[in-house]
């Protein structure tokens, strides 16, 4: 007999999902003036979880006005120490309600409970703790003696880490004294709406956080709204470019965290067993729905064959299935649309002559799934080597020398992250100086910490989130404070 893990399901009873949700404006849930609702779906079962409000222009106006009032009357005049008190309270509530958030995130997003429980939710709480600590110490952040908040921040976040991206956006903004209007992605609004409840529970002054739901049109209304001082966007490079075009000539500040096509570079002296784990963490974490995913594996030729063999052996132990099962490694693809896009790119890999290997997984009947896929014999010209797939698909390329690895790694319009695997410390430092990527991991991959800045080069965006650098995105620099004050008073 073999050792079969019995199903170990996390109970969904801990979270209660309402049949429909309003918009969170000025500290209260209100019905959308449009009266239009859309459905949010569990990608693992295709079951409708709830109906979500679609915000129109007058809702966006109401949210921005509420944020403006809260900024002027309450939040910007409150002491940093008092702002910190609220942020610490939110952080603790996220911890207290961690299981609820984890289950809800898994239901709405499709990611394995192991990840939402061990990574997304604890990191989200950690971001609030970290930036709560900064709220009364901003004058020591190296941004001038008396740094000032920007005003109202419009924040648009993606569906891959719904709560975590919310924390990355809201925690620094609030710590610096800004108020926010945040729009979650249309397929993953639920944890943001649960977070709105946490804001109520924490007695956060009304209007400091406003959460409005909707699709791209609603996002565009936020971007184009005159009452907003700053846009922070995480999402696709195409949308990022259109946002930047829309903001041209305005006074609004902008940070963009966009796509990636990261190189994960394995040298022949690497700790191979751990490197294989790093490859798995790099591209199969969160079904590959990670902007900094290590989607291009660069293997030194002398170890390519044995590493691919070891990788395939390892991938056969990955468990794809019910995201609520605590033993699931690979969950569901967030939407049918995304699955189609992944399939389309896989097909392009086949058509262009790369060699495909798919892990032997039983695919559930309902829901949207993609088995871990590895392409070998990939050349730099293939679409799967150049375009962001945002799915569990790895493209393997090889190199002969460190110079060649650098050239290939940098040969992409993106520049969000990179990984280096070698036991040689001097080579790590040399490579890190050569690679044009915002985050470089050495002998690990996809590790995140609130104290460490995150952000991209080139088409991966600009601005940094996390760490002391993340404060700069929500404070006026000494040079623009005069201009800004005139524009906004």
């Amino acid at each position, binding site marked *: *007999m*073999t*050792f*079969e*893990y*019995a*199903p*170990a399901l996390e109970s969904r009873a801990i979270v209660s999902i309402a049949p429909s949700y309003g918009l969170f404006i000025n500290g209260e849930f209100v019905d959308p003036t449009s009266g239009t609702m859309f459905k949010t779906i569990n990608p693992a079962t295709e079951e409708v979880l709830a109906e979500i409000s679609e915000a129109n222009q007058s809702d966006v106006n109401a949210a921005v006005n509420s944020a403006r009032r809260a900024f002027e009357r309450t939040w910007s005049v409150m002491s940093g120490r008092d702002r910190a008190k609220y942020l610490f309270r939110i952080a603790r509530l996220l911890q207290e309600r961690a299981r609820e958030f984890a289950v809800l995130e898994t239901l709405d997003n499709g990611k394995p409970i*192991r990840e939402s429980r*061990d990574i997304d939710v604890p990191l989200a709480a950690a971001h609030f703790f970290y930036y709560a600590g900064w709220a009364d110490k901003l004058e020591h952040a190296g941004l001038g003696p008396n740094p000032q908040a920007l005003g109202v921040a419009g924040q648009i976040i993606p569906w891959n880490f719904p709560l975590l991206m919310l924390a990355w956006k809201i925690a620094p903004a609030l710590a610096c004294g800004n108020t926010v209007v945040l729009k979650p992605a249309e397929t993953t609004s639920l944890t943001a709406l649960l977070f709105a409840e946490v804001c109520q529970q924490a007695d956060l002054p009304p209007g400091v956080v406003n959460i409005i739901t909707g699709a791209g049109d609603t996002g565009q209304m936020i971007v184009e709204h005159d009452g907003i001082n700053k846009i922070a966007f995480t999402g696709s490079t195409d949308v990022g470019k259109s946002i930047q075009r829309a903001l041209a000539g305005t006074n609004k500040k902008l940070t963009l965290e966009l796509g990636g096509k990261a190189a994960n570079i394995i040298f022949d*002296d*690497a*700790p*191979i*067993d*751990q490197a294989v*784990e*790093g490859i798995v963490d790099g591209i199969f974490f969160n079904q590959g729905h990670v902007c900094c995913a290590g989607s291009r594996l660069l293997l030194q030729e002398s170890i390519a064959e*044995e590493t691919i063999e070891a990788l395939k052996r390892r991938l056969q*132990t990955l468990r794809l299935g019910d995201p609520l099962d*605590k*033993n699931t490694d690979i969950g569901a693809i967030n939407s049918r649309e995304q699955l189609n896009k992944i399939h389309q790119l896989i097909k392009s890999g086949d058509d262009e002559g790369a060699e495909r290997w798919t892990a032997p997984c039983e695919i559930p009947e309902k829901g949207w799934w993609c088995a871990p896929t590895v392409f070998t014999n990939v050349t730099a010209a293939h679409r799967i080597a150049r375009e962001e797939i945002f799915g569990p698909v790895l493209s393997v390329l090889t190199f002969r020398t460190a110079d060649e690895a650098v050239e290939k790694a940098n040969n992409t319009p993106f520049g969000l992250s990179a990984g280096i695997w070698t*036991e040689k410390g001097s080579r790590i430092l040399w490579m890190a100086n050569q690679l044009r990527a915002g985050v470089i991991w050495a*002998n*690990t991959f996809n590790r995140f910490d609130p104290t460490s800045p995150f952000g991209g080069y080139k088409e991966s965006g600009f601005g940094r989130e996390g760490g002391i650098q993340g404060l700069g995105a929500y404070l006026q620099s000494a040079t623009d404070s005069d201009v800004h004050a005139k524009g906004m008073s």
Partner: protein
Amino acid sequence: MQKVAEPLTTTGALREFLHALPGVDEVGATARAAALSTRSIKNEAKAWAIDLAIRMVDLTTLEGMDTPAKVRAMCAKALRPDPTDPTVPSVAAVCVYGDMAAIARASVGAALHVAAVATAFPSGRASLEVKLHDVRDAVAAGADEIDMVIDRGAFLAGNYGLVNEQIVAVKAACGTAHLKVILETGELRTLDNVRRASWLAMMAGADFIKTSTGKVPVAATPPVAIVMLQAVRDYYALTGTRIGVKPAGGIRTSKDAIKYLVLIKETAGEAWLTPDLFRFGASTLLNDLLMQRQRMAIGHYSGPDYVTID
């Protein structure tokens, strides 16, 4: 992985081979062990795992205060761990000092393996002649498994040829008895050393590689077990021979034991999920396995007075 053309015996040739093995990143190996420890083993899977773990126990007493009565009592327990429940399987073996091997063998007959620690256990600080005599003595007394210790001093000094020579000699002295080679990973300190010592022992003729004596502060840990399981997996890929693994010391709860079974399944593979290729060196673990087994049968914990102390 390099191909081994012929047996490596000299320190120089062994160094060349062992130091060319891929390094082990301690942070990564520890993270992998931690990730696997979150596997949730429930219901039928847990019941199956508990019975397998019982069958993998080398029930051990290695004390200066061991007496024939103590050893006989332990042997009775090993044969029939739960006197109230005949469906409980026997453990794999009893593990004793060499001078107790005859008593153990008389107690368990042919039903169980008798493992004896030998070679100046636990320090290994004696001449090769004394170590070999220790081994022959235990085999003559009825031990069919010998748990030897490597010379950690020689290993750390880079004298791989000497370590190899001693294992080869002990293996010869074992005759038909199975040889388990204790690396004492708590003294080797680094996972790179664990990997090298594992390969050294396997190439010298070990049937099993074992983590620890249980006599130094750091005994078996999951990252060490992962590295040893990778070593036997890779050795099998290279030679077609499966070597066993025995973590020993510090494994006290069913939860810990099940974590090791998960490590086996997801590192070396299902083929190692047998007492022929995996053992737990333990004394208190067995009672916790029995209590968990009772709990699964009757629905609540019985308590330590409902399992025997031997």
